[in-house]
């Protein structure tokens, strides 16, 4: 019985000691890997380069993303569009666009715009292994008359790409989870 008591005391002290040591280490801050801080869409056409940027440097923090739109669309013009995603909180800054492209079958970018403001078609050269669109590149035809509206860009993770209309860019049946969603104000001159 004496040995048992001793053994218990040793186990107790060892555990207590290890637990206390644990406390002394100061945890480094988390290097945030999952966050998308910046969504940029560049529209090129009619001699214009229009950049739309949404940047949220506190991630899930309370500050809202800051949006900038460098110019207005010209009615009837066709623009080539390209969207990129970045994590500027990671050190070094991480460009997530290639990652999304590589895992194209698990991602799709959707664009929602009112018909009067414009019409968007996925670029044929940006498809996943199954031939389904990824949506990082697209073309936009601006509406025929001056108006204002919004362009909503959504990055879906694990959408159901086979569902009706999804390959044409209809988000309604896509399912999946939203990784990024930004709404840019758009004006057509």
């Amino acid at each position: 019985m004496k040995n048992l008591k001793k053994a218990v005391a040793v186990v107790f002290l060892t555990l207590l000691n290890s637990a206390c040591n644990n406390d002394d280490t100061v945890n480094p801050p988390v290097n945030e890997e999952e966050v998308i801080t910046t969504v940029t869409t560049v529209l090129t056409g009619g001699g214009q380069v229009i950049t739309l940027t949404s940047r949220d440097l506190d991630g899930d923090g309370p500050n809202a993303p800051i949006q900038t739109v460098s110019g207005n669309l010209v009615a009837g013009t066709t623009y080539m569009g390209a969207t990129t995603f970045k994590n500027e909180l990671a050190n070094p800054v991480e460009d997530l666009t290639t990652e999304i492209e590589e895992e194209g079958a698990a991602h799709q970018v959707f664009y929602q715009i009112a018909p009067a403001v414009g019409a968007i078609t996925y670029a044929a050269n940006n498809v996943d292994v199954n031939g389904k669109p990824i949506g990082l590149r697209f073309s936009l035809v601006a509406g025929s008359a001056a108006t204002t509206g919004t362009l909503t860009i959504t990055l879906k993770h694990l959408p159901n790409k086979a569902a009706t209309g999804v390959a044409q860019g209809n988000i309604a049946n896509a399912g999946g989870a939203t990784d990024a969603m930004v709404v840019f104000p758009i004006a057509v001159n």
Partner: protein
Amino acid sequence: MRLFIVMYSCLAFWGAYSQNTISGTITTENGLPLSDVHVHIGKKATATKPDGTYILSGIPSGVQKVYVAAIGYTTLEKQMEITGSTTLNFQLQEQVVVLKDMEIKQRITKNSSNSEQNIRIETIEQLSNSSLATLLKEVSGVAVLKTGSNIMKPVINGLHSSRVPIINQNVRMEDQQWGTEHAPNFDVNAAGSVTIIKGASALQYGGDAIGGVVVIEPELLRKDTLQAKSILNLATNGRGGSVSTMVQKGAKKGWSWNALGTFKYEGDKEAPNYVLSNSGARGSSFSGNLRFAGERYHWNSYYSYFQQEVGILKAAHIGNVTDLYTAIATQKPNSTEDFTYSIAAPKQEVQHHLAKINYQFRKNESSTFDFQYAVQHNQRLEFDLRRNALNTKAALDLAVTTHSFLGTYTYSNTLVNLKSGVQIGYQNNFSDPKTGVRPLIPSYSKMETGLFAIGTYKKNNATSFEAGIRYDFANIEASKYYLKSRWEERNYAADFSHFIVREEGNQWFTKPRFLQHNWAANIGYRKQFHHEFEWIMNISLATRMPNPSEWFSDGLHHSNGQIELGDLRLKQEKAYKWNTTIKKEWKTLTATLQPFVNRVSGFIYLQPTGFETTIRGAFPVWEYKQTEALLTGVDLNTQWDWNSYLQHGLNFSFVNGHDLTKKAYLIDMPPVQLQQTFTYVKKEWHHLKIALKNEIVFTKKQFPNYDFETNIVVDGELTPVFVPISKPPKGYSLFHFYSEMAFPMFQKNKITVAFSVQNLTNKVYRDYLNRQRFFADEMGSSFQVQLKFNY
């Protein structure tokens, strides 16, 4: 139950009247007087007094049946010839077989003036395949808070999680019980009995049980024997099952041990109309006791390991509020796939180790010392769907280690029982930063010291009083990075600048530290009016300090797509609870009524307060707030034996939660529930038992309105919509079927075969207390087969 005739002494003859008076003393083997022992001679019966004596008059001469029974002791039954008034003393032997039902309730009773209810071993075995919460639901007043179809927590009188401590073998489980999607890490097969105490009166376990306490005790064998039991469960829904084996070596003196192993494997569950994709579960557990019983002392060591991997419904993994709106509007899961056994992210992986050693020493007839040291380690990994599928790192990695020492001294004589003690605890939580995701819960350490004293005074067999008091001191220190924007938004600069240690980019590294003094007290009264009518009343004060998630939560809770914000300003929660039990027994009917009033001052709850827009879109923000709350309700249980074959049981519970400050209802209060069971038992036919159970959950009408408006994109344009998150789903009525038969096998062995059906009508329904109710229906029918071997 096997009956033993023990021994008797002193037979004196006293003449030959036809009517005799018999008196005597009933004691234990060690000569301690036993009170409340039922003594039955001929047609007369009585109970012993606190000094163990009894007296029975009017016993006719001749051969009479003598029957002496006490809870926890072997019943003595024999024929004796009575030839005159005499003294009959008996010694009762401590019970040696597995305890059942009501007996356990009293044996492990913290005190007799508690409102407590018990679940017996046969129910535990019946539900061997289910979770602890499902088992506890057998008691009226207990509801189940679910996250999907695998994660379940008990809700007692409307309260759960940190407010309902779970005590396993005298050790308080420290398994991150603060989270609503953190289920208790316990295998039901390891329970010999489960007691639910509705109130804060079990002060030796802590003073913060605002909802109630769940006490789990092991099966104890006090006879020299070796026995084993195996249970195999198979279920069609989930296409899996579990197998559990327990071996027990009992002994009256010296060494005894038991060992239990359980293995569980289940694939996707199925709702009536679709597969609940990624709802598989698997787990294993091992536990064992090693005891040594000496003349005056006991050693008991216990180790338990519990491990579980649980899939989180794929459809419940949402991004922003648009996804939530879509899920509610369509009432369909956004993703259903074919059945599979595999579990993908999102999922949880949990491990829990518990080891304890206990030494009990009986100094003399009245004084007992008890020392216990326990260590627990809980590791929780939560995996999220990562953007990069190659990244299989957990999104949350928390490891909580808890050491606790408990020393108690018990003094008891026939009238008074005094228990006092000290509890010292140290807890360390390590929140691993390597996840690459900001943790919701920071690393912290906690030191606690508690002192308590509980006294019971038994005036006589019919009346007893109880009073207890407990004081706890806690010191908690966390290490947490706050985004500067969050620190500002929370307005912490004015009050908590002294917590800041240094600057780290766009974050503050802080060390929040809190000292807390917590008081708890309890008064109880029990009165047995006559044999059939009992009244128990309890008034208690409980104080609970905010848990880490209430203080420190900060960020997106991935499991439910909402931003949750703790508050460093939160103070303790204080509950003043009054509850009473009125129990009446008629010839064939027993009814127990338990009304309660729980006034909770500083009630902490999560309230939606608006939106935060991030690059992922808008997320609803839920903040931990405090308010003045009043919970009232009533539980009713009846048992009606129609005849020796047919039985009817009823469980009814109602609870209402009011926010007194806002004059509104409290969120997530269980709906009114009514369960009825018809049981047919025919012992002659291989112990045939057939039961039909009807479970009615009414539509919850009392709920706070937290609906909110948001903008979603319709036809390319932002359009405002309402997101109806508040309205509880419609009530439902389910039928369950159960049947069993037992057959002898070889010589002394037994096999019990059970067939049961859950959700007999394959009802499509959703449950208010399921946090995933927005995303999918509940499980459909499940046909189950259970084989139980006793050998």
